[in-house]
């Protein structure tokens, strides 16, 4: 498979899974620079830190546990680069859609808000649970994973009913 196909063909589940798996292994190797597993919640927290610091309410977001979590700004940069990577992939393949789907905005308001509240309790996002804590055998990760599956089921049923 040439580079051109690699860039342009949509990845099927085998190639996609393998590519994702390899990158996620490389991601955690400190010698390669990043040295931590995948999660984006820290990047969002960093944005909130900046907002609340400007308002003088920084202490709202932090306590003794959060002080153990290092350099969320790095995660924010990682998140911005991730959006850029998706943008490049979409542009190269004429999949950049530039749309505003008004019909789902109320779901996005409620969904986004609930994800934000959930992030505070599980201290990370769902990727941070499934593709980060679970493969590290973290007990908190297993507990949150069960909650996430149940919550997704409830949410999907709710979505179906209210559509």
């Amino acid at each position: 498979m040439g580079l051109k196909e690699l860039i342009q063909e949509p990845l099927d589940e085998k190639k996609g899974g393998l590519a994702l798996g390899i990158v996620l292994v490389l991601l955690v190797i400190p010698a390669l620079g990043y040295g931590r597993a995948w999660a984006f919640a820290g990047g969002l927290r960093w944005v909130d830190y900046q907002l609340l610091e400007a308002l003088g309410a920084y202490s709202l977001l932090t306590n003794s546990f959060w002080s153990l979590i290092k350099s969320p700004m790095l995660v924010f940069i990682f998140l911005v680069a991730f959006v850029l990577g998706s943008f490049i992939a979409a542009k190269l393949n004429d999949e950049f859609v530039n749309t505003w789907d008004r019909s789902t905005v109320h779901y996005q308001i409620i969904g986004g808000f609930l994800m934000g509240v959930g992030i505070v309790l599980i201290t990370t996002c769902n990727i941070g649970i499934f593709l980060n804590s679970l493969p590290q055998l973290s007990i908190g990760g297993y507990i949150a994973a069960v909650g996430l599956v149940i919550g997704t089921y409830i949410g999907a049923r709710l979505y179906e009913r209210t559509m």
Partner: protein
Amino acid sequence: MKEYIAAVVFGILLGFIVQRSRYCMTGAIRDYILFGVTRNLKITLMVLAIITFFYTLFLTYGIFNPTLVPAGWFTFVGGVIFGIGMALGGGCVTSTFYRIGEGQWNYLVSAIFMLVGIIAGSALFNIAPYAFFYEGYTFMGYDYGLVWLNDLLGVSPIVVGVVQAAIFALAYYKIARSEA
């Protein structure tokens, strides 16, 4: 500086792969439960089989520092709340941001309300004396509930990791075979 360059390179690479493979974890759980569609579930299982093996291997040799996730009943509740949110919002944090990269601007609303939700959640759960994980909080005798399955079993991470990776790989092959 090196870590910032790595964050940019890995971020772009990951965004590229996720967009090209249309990977969505909300979809992995939702589509399987509701419609029996397994595409995203299979990607998740394959990734989990690979990274469980390597992460536990690396942890065994102390190559990287483990991610800290506290444990307690609030972890379960948080998972349920987040799960409902990602199913309603049509995507988790990751798929929300890759769709923003694709120009689906309504997902920016999700992103903004995640920021609002974190502030609201912090106001509710983060401040002593209501905080769930504060200095002195323990779960099963571990500070902040930071405990790993291999610790409880008294073995090294790779021992549990091999078993867990095999379970994920087996689940992948069972699903793939049933569809062949």
